[in-house]
């Protein structure tokens, strides 16, 4: 007998099967998991955090602190689900959490009996001896005992999506004030969004037996919902929790698409909405609070309004001998409704001595308190402060209401105390948010409608909407009068925070020890740090603090709520950005061709680049890379270098601009020539390098490194728009518009001559090293040709509009066959640049100067350019500064390790003797041994000296000889040939 015969918003014809702790149970359509459990007579659903005390269902909403369950199993399992918020579905599987042994016999309950030794902050005072025991013994025990539910440790199988919405007015909460406000706004034509966490819109109207305009409140609700649904400018969003309020009217909301996460696995389980609103109204009502007495945490004890709603909305008969304990009028409403529904209400205890009982056909006690509750896994009786014992299996408590003002705190608004209704009310909510109704501390329904109307009229007028007529609402009158918090402190084990097991004693002890500021109290006792963020416990705790400190509530202060309103799955915040979709891929123009040539790809920022192109029979990557290097250096190779940043620079002042942004001079660069450029940051540290070509008087083309393409462009825009706004300079990034290939090797010219327009002479005389020009290739494809060389070979870089790139690479590899053309990847590129001693990312790491790089002489002394002044600072130009040089192992069979540090031979390996580090290494297939680049003190003056390259991580020491960084063709004859 746990359900009424009629009434409520449940479909008694539609039975749903579910299980709890392995027991098969039946619920009804419209149930939540908690109403279904209660409908089966189950109150005991979990265990508390510290003392493992039995826990029941305490509320009917998302503020539930106790009824947390592990939903579903295996990879679908989800911890800490509030049974009160899950819409029951057929096949639901739930299990209780946080017990060792069964739910009804939890071994860890021993903590409860030891609670005298486990007082607030006890762990700060012990577990310190012997020292090693903290990590080895004590902490593992604490960790295993702590925590609530479990993760599956498998990847989350669900999909999460994100969306954006815009509106004039965001209505948060679809209770009476929210719906009425939405209706007023909707009629003006304003764009309105209404969100509510419940799967049924209506808020408290769903659980109350109120009369509106002479009819049932649910009828009024139906009418208003159908009118709202008819508006095109209104979006109703049930199952959507507004979890956070952020700057400038941006709100975060989480919509639940599937309560059963096994449904529609290919569709999103949740949608995370970002709502951009011009104005918002907070209509979130109020949350009931408990009353402090000994053992007030027993299962079977429930908030009064929640109990009423379980009865009215879900037809639940919560107990066979129900008693009610209240300090305000709400308890009497519960008594009335429960009785009407046929429940056996045996007694109501009202703390207030001098009231006129609103209902008479009930046993009541006035001016008394409950001293203690008894029971083990469920309440069995209560004792009043006059010693009277009442047997009861279910107790409704109402200690008054707290406005649900969580969201007004998200931008650090701090609520203030209201002496009239003894609750905190919003004080400084976010800009463009108005708080309406009970959320604002207005508890009388008639006043709530009035409040909505006045505020909405003004808000809409300010938003520029016309006035509309709205009919008055007549609603049954309910008084709300609550008695103030008692001035004494209850004795015994009295629970303030049901989940974290914070008792009145803990608060007393904390204050006694000096932790009496609200924030210190919270941190020392963990009061309010449970998963309800103190929605149930904070005000109760403050009331105790106020008594102990003998200060009024408004002087005690309060902590503030942080987003989110209710916890949000991390997966929902990540949305689709996971796995391979964590970041977008950028593909080079030759990607498909490279793929068909068996390339191995590597991530370079968001780019995927061909790393090497293995041939059949090649067993290691080194075999492929060595072949690519040798074949390039003996014949010709081609490499996609599109990822380099490319910037077109035009305008009368383009030359001056380049002089300003580069450390070396560019103004005098002849047309048709390319120059290496070193860019500094304004603090004088090397930023980036590349080449810039001059195509005409006022047109330059710059390349940057792949890694810095975006930041260099941003920096140039800053130098132009912010530092030299009067200059005639125009910048555009063309990285994605031009495909670029390096064609390198002794046969590169011959190969290019075959594809170039025959009218263009690219002989060494006419197109020497560092020449550039606009040409066309392959019968008319426009191209830019640069005679530059990163590999040290006779080499070119050729740029063509991206749309021809696939055709181009296919054609040239066909034509190149007779020259033994080889595609090479980033590894071979790296090997060849190390053989030539060119700096790259490992060397240009944002910590090195031109001086360190051996390029100090390039830095302009005369002009004002970015970075030159600060590069002259004393400490950056010391005698024993680091210099970039090369290294070869004395024993040529040894392999160098990047990241090794240099120590002089015979010296101890320590920080004082650290002389620098190895930045890049490679096996040189040309020299047939390992080579390295690195920074070492005065390196350029120490060629031939032998030092140790140490790698203590792997306990390795390799003797190396300091060498010029130019290992291959040091005179640069090949690239000029």
């Amino acid at each position, binding site marked *: 007998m746990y359900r009424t015969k009629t009434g409520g918003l449940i479909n008694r014809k539609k039975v749903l099967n579910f299980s709890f702790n392995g027991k098969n149970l039946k619920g009804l359509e419209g149930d939540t998991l908690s109403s279904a459990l209660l409908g089966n007579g189950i109150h005991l659903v979990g265990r508390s955090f510290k003392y493992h005390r039995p826990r029941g269902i305490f509320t009917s909403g998302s503020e539930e602190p106790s009824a947390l369950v592990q939903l579903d199993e295996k990879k679908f399992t989800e911890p800490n689900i509030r049974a009160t918020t899950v819409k029951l579905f057929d096949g639901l599987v739930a299990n209780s959490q946080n017990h060792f042994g069964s739910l009804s016999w939890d071994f860890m309950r021993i903590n409860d009996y030891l609670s005298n030794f486990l007082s607030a902050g006890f762990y700060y005072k*012990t577990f*310190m001896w012997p020292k090693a025991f903290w990590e080895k013994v004590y902490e593992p025990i604490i960790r295993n005992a702590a925590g609530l539910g479990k993760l599956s440790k498998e990847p*989350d199988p669900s999909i999460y999506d994100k969306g954006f919405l815009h509106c004039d007015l965001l209505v948060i909460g679809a209770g009476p004030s929210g719906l009425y406000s939405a209706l007023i706004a909707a009629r003006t034509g304003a764009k309105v969004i209404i969100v509510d966490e419940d799967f049924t819109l209506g808020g408290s109207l769903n659980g109350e037996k109120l009369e509106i305009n002479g009819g049932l409140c649910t009828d009024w609700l139906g009418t208003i919902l159908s009118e709202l649904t008819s508006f095109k400018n209104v979006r109703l969003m049930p199952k959507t929790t507004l979890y956070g309020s952020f700057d400038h009217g941006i709100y975060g909301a989480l919509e639940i698409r599937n309560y059963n996460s096994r449904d529609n696995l290919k569709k999103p389980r949740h949608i995370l909405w970002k709502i951009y609103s011009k104005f918002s109204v907070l209509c979130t009502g109020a949350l009931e609070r408990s009353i402090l007495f000994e053992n007030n945490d027993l299962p079977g004890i429930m908030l009064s309004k929640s109990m009423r709603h379980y009865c009215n909305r879900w037809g639940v008969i919560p107990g066979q001998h129900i008693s009610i304990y209240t300090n305000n009028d709400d308890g009497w409403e519960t008594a009335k409704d429960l009785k009407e529904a046929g429940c056996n209400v045996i007694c109501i205890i009202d703390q207030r001595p001098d009231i006129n009982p609103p209902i008479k056909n009930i046993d009541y006690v006035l001016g008394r308190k409950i001293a203690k509750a008894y029971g083990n896994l469920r309440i069995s009786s209560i004792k009043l402060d006059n010693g009277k014992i009442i047997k009861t299996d279910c107790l409704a408590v109402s200690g008054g209401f707290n406005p649900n003002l969580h969201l007004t705190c998200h931008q650090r608004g701090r609520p203030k105390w209201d002496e009239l209704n003894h609750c905190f009310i919003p004080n400084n909510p976010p800009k463009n948010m108005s708080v309406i109704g009970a959320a604002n501390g207005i508890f009388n329904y008639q006043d709530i409608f009035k409040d909505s109307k006045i505020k909405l009229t003004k808000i809409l007028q300010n938003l520029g909407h016309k006035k509309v007529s709205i009919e008055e609402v007549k609603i049954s009158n309910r008084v709300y009068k609550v008695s103030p918090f008692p001035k004494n402190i209850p004795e015994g084990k009295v629970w303030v925070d049901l989940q974290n097991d914070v008792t009145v004693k803990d608060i007393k002890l904390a204050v006694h020890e000096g932790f009496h500021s609200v924030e210190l109290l919270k941190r020392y006792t963990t009061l309010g740090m449970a998963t309800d963020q103190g929605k149930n416990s904070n005000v109760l705790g403050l009331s105790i603090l106020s008594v102990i400190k003998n200060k009024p509530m408004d002087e005690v202060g309060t902590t503030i709520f*942080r987003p989110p309103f209710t916890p949000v799955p*991390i997966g929902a915040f990540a949305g689709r950005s996971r*796995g391979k979709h964590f970041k977008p891929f950028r593909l080079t123009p030759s990607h498909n061709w490279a793929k068909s040539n068996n390339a191995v790809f590597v991530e370079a920022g968001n780019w995927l680049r061909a790393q090497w192109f293995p041939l059949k029979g090649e067993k290691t990557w080194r075999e492929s890379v060595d072949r690519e290097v040798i074949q390039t250096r003996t014949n010709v190779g081609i490499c996609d270098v599109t990822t380099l940043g490319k910037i077109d620079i035009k305008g009368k002042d383009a030359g001056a601009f380049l002089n300003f942004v580069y450390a070396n001079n560019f103004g005098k660069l002849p047309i048709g020539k390319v120059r290496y450029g070193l860019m500094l940051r304004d603090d004088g540290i090397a930023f980036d390098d590349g080449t810039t070509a001059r195509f005409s008087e006022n047109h330059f083309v710059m390349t940057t490194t792949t890694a810095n393409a975006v930041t260099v462009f941003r920096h140039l825009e800053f130098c132009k728009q912010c530092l030299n706004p009067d200059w005639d300079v125009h910048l555009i990034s063309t990285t994605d518009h031009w495909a670029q290939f390096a064609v390198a090797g002794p046969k590169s010219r011959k190969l290019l001559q075959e594809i170039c327009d025959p009218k263009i002479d690219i002989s060494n005389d006419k197109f020497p090293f560092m020449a550039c020009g606009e040409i066309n290739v392959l019968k008319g494809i426009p191209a830019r040709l640069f005679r530059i060389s990163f590999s040290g070979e006779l080499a070119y870089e050729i740029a063509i509009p991206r749309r021809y790139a696939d055709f181009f690479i296919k054609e040239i590899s066909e034509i190149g066959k007779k020259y033994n053309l080889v595609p090479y990847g980033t590894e071979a590129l790296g090997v060849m640049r190390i053989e030539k001693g060119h700096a790259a990312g490992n060397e240009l790491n944002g910590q090195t100067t031109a001086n360190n790089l051996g390029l100090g002489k390039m830095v302009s002394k005369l002009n004002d350019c970015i970075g030159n002044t600060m590069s002259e600072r004393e400490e950056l130009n010391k005698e024993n500064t680091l210099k970039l040089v090369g290294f070869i192992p004395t024993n040529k069979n040894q392999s160098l390790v990047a990241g090794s540090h240099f120590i002089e031979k015979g010296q101890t390996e320590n920080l004082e003797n650290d002389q620098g*580090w190895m930045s890049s290494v490679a096996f040189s297939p040309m020299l047939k041994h390992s080579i390295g680049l690195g920074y070492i003190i005065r390196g350029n003056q120490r060629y031939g000296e032998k030092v140790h390259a140490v790698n*203590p991580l792997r306990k390795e020491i390799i003797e190396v000889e300091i060498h010029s960084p130019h290992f291959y063709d040091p005179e640069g004859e090949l690239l000029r040939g």
Partner: protein
Amino acid sequence: MMIFWCLIMNYSGFKIFWEGLTGNKGWKKAWREPNPKKEYDVIIIGGGGHGLSTAYYLSNRFNVNNVAVLEKGWLGSGNIGRNTTIIRSNYLLPENQPFYELSLKLWENLENDTNYNSMVSQRGVLNLFHSDGQRDAFVRRGNAMILSGADANLLNENELKKMCPYLDYQNARFPIKGALLQKRGGTVRHDAVAWGYARGADVKGVDIIQNCEVEGFIIKNGKCVGVETNKGIIKAKKIASCVAGSSSKLMSKAGIRLPIESHVLQAFVSEGLKPVLDNVITFGAGHFYVSQSDKGGLVFGGDIDGYNSYAQRGNLPVVEDVCEGGMAIMPMIGRARLLRMWGGIMDMSMDGSPFIDKTHINGLYFNGGWCYGGFKATPASGYCYAHLLAKDEPHPVARDFKLDRFIKGKIIDEKGQGAQPNLH
């Protein structure tokens, strides 16, 4: 008798047992709440982690006891109360590494020092790498750590898989190739650090004065001789600013402009979960780091919001960025729920490194610029600041944390980002 007295006075298992039997009535106040005296030898402005640790080491190691700590709000209300609790000394540069190593050593002995269980837990800090270039940089860093006496291990993919089987090795956008591990790194119960230091300083006579806001400095003939507060004028021979996050605000009252911007860093905690993560893990190709607290919450964070702010709260783009980073490397956390997000204000310095220095005003000292690395530095920062205040000489491991280092060019830029505070 002495032993019994010790057992009764100090925090210990015995004391807990004794109090448990006798109704928990014998606990003393953790610290006094004195009114300010007229004059002190040293005034420390800021009762956060660094200020309290400075007071602790001044009084316990340098014998300077006539000290006041002035705290605007409640004790420990700054970043010591809102960080993600990680300790480590995995720094690269020689100006930094020895300092953070000293800090780690002090952490290792903190409970014995302060007789307060701050739950120092050396769970190991892992920095994942995802490319050869990153590996090279970590090898360099790991070797630098070992050279200066710290511990470091380089794990390849297989070794990492054994330690952290739940990371996404199959489907990650940026493949997880290994990690740099510092075994001695880990986590600490952050609030307890402040309380332990406060209690330890208080015992030695340090006055910790809460709700005492400094409104101005009293500077006479180029010497700072006291402060004006909401509790009146308090004089001192030495005034030590220690208010990271609000450094610019405070020092502007002495007319000093700093190489610092204030930025908001958000932090996050999930609902409590049974143990899933043993270590501290830092993603190398996104902004995400995580550990699991003893209470079971996943404590995680990422990048700063990136704009100047004193608002102690952030915005959604960073929340999403951080969670994306988390899901990218450990997709098992998708169904763990974010319980609470909050923000702290960081002194972001121009090279990402801190300051412990005298100012050009005689008698006025400065400690700040900790960026988002201040928590792990708490013990050494206090120790070195105490050294400077007691001896007027910088401690050797903190000698480069100077305010004038940018004029000279002795920058300490771990990340190589230059004078752009939001990139450090």
